[in-house]
């Protein structure tokens, strides 16, 4: 009996203890909010914490930028890479200051939700293969061959259609094992969007999506899962984000772009694809960078987007978020390239600035001036 009483007393004490601890924290937060009004996030001012959630694809660079920005300006970024779908859901639920998505939202959907979107960073998706005796970039895949492989129509590596593009290369008679993402993913969205554009059959049978009904193959979880499966399975072909192909030293394939050239995935070929993109005439920045024209363009390039509300209840937070993004556009280029991402070109950043000025406001006053 005594024990019981003691434990109950202990519980109360613990509860009281917690209760006592809470008020100072709350005060701290109030102070933080007060500090925001000054809108000068210098080292001396109280730090703001920005919250964001969404795409996993740009997570490495966002966290690197956040780390650097905190050192310079003191603002902390709490970015949760829960996936693009999750990011869209979270911003619609208004639990975060910004959402992030690898797949752009269409203008109509943006308007309906009262959101704006702008591109933050670009990158490439790369087909990787596991073929004995094939060095990186040696294998060339034409548009129709790539589509037919992922449709399950070409089943052996020594198929005449593959051999046709690869003169003099010895291709083994092994089965082709397709590896795709098992989890819903922006990488899959970009990749299937490309197949959708180059193959009529893919368009009608499968379509574009973060997860689709794959005609063939096995699914790995995450880029690392796909990379592991491709390295495991002889005769496998999969697609991963460029950085994963490099880190794992995987054999990529050359792809045929719109101009008919076979190109390697490099920062330059991603930039070439981005340079030809017509952002100006894309309503709501709805622009997908797959299959862009240009002699050196990598065909499976994609941008990652930020979503924010047009009408902001907390202008100081929104302003600081924009400060952060602006700082990233200006100062984050080197770290982006280091991580094999492609920074946004100057002209696009200017367009984004115009969007901020014109579209985002708080009670009639523009947030960004």
């Amino acid at each position, binding site marked *: *009996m005594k024990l*019981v*009483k003691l434990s*109950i007393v202990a519980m109360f004490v613990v509860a009281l203890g917690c209760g006592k601890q809470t008020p100072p924290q709350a005060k701290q937060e109030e102070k933080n909010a007060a500090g925001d009004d000054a809108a000068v996030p210098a080292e001396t001012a109280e730090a703001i914490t920005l919250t964001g959630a969404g795409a996993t694809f740009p997570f490495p660079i966002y966290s690197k930028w956040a780390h650097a920005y905190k050192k310079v300006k003191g603002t902390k970024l709490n970015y949760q890479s*829960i*996936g*693009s*779908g*999750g990011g*869209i*859901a979270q911003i619609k639920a208004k639990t975060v200051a910004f959402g992030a998505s690898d797949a752009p939202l269409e203008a109509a959907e943006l308007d309906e939700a009262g959101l704006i979107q702008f591109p933050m960073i670009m990158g490439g998706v790369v087909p990787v293969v596991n073929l004995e005796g094939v060095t990186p970039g040696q294998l060339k895949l034409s548009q129709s061959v790539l589509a037919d492989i992922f449709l399950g129509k070409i089943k052996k590596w020594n198929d005449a259609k593959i051999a046709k593009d690869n003169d003099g290369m010895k291709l083994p008679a092994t*089965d082709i*094992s397709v590896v795709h993402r*098992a*989890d*819903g*993913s*922006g990488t899959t969205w970009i990749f299937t969007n490309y197949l959708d554009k180059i193959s009529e059959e893919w368009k009608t049978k*499968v*379509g*574009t*999506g*973060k*997860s*689709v*009904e*794959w005609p063939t*193959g*096995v*699914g*790995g*979880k995450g880029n690392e*899962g796909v990379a*592991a*499966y491709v390295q*495991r*399975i*002889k*005769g496998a072909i999969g697609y991963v984000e460029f950085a994963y192909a490099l880190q794992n030293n995987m054999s990529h394939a050359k792809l045929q772009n719109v101009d008919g050239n076979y190109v390697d995935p490099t920062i330059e070929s991603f930039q070439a694809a981005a340079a030809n993109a017509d952002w100006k005439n894309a309503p709501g920045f709805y622009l997908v960078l797959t299959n862009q024209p240009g002699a050196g363009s990598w065909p499976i390039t994609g941008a990652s987007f930020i979503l924010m509300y047009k009408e902001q209840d907390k202008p100081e937070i929104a302003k600081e978020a924009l400060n952060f993004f602006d700082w990233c556009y200006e100062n984050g280029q080197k770290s982006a390239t280091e991580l094999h991402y492609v920074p946004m070109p100057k002209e696009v950043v200017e367009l984004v600035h115009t969007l901020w000025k014109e579209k985002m406001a708080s009670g009639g006053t523009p947030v960004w001036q």
Partner: protein
Amino acid sequence: MATSNNSSSSSGSSGNGAKKPLGDIIYAGLTRGAAGAVILLSIGIVLSLAGNSWPAIVKFGASFISSTTWNPVMSEFGALSSIAGTLISTIIAMAIAVPLAVIIAFFLVELAHPVISKPVGYAIELLAAVPSIIYGMWGLFVFAPFMADYIQPALQRWFGFLPFFEGPPMGIGMLSAGIILALMVLPFITAVMRDVFQMVPSVVKEASYGMGSTTLEVAREVTVKYGFSGLIGAVFLGLGRAVGETMAVTFVIGNSHDISVSLYAAGNTIASTLANEFTEAAEPMYISALIELGLVLFLMTLVIQVLAQWWIARTQKKAGAGL
């Protein structure tokens, strides 16, 4: 628990003729509340699962259970491949784990010297505590290549005429998932079975030995029969874990929404599909279908529990088991 505590406290206080101490009242309230909360929680889970999956239930009806289409682009969902994958992987796991567990538990209790049985017992308990993600990563990076290089080609050489072992030996797929599951549930089942065997009174066993039984006969006729309901309990504990296991399976099963006779082919389970697809599901119908998958898993577990109880009750009557 609550009732037994109550009765002891009331008998104690009635002797004094005084009121119940405040601590007892609070304690009784707390325990009752906790017990009631469990029931409320279960009901709450079913209600919220059913509520959120209602759009999918209305749209797909019975075809959700019978269709293998899983097409997020077209918003058409059928759970048959996931249900089948859950059942097949669980059956493989149980087929491997249960006989092994019986043998290990029996060895530890009846045959092994304490010098061996104690450390092995600790090792089993340790294995039971390993988080499932560890099994998953070990499965993907160590076990799957081993399967692909040695086990699967060998199986194909000897049993290649069977349809179960067709296709390229990738190392990942239904068979690997089943074996990983078996490894994961084995320590659970073994640990419980060992306790069950230990509870069989030695008088009963000694009596059997006294009548001239061999060790095998004692095991079969006395130990196993005496502890039968406990053994079944152990099996269903393992089964419960195998059915709902998520991360380890996700890593090695290959995650494809197909049903294949070959155990080398990739498949999926309800839990692995949820783990894979929930994060990026934005369409309301997609989310609803995923939640309905959760509901199906919940109901499957419920059916397993009910069957287990019913079976234990039935066999207990028939065999007159002791535990």
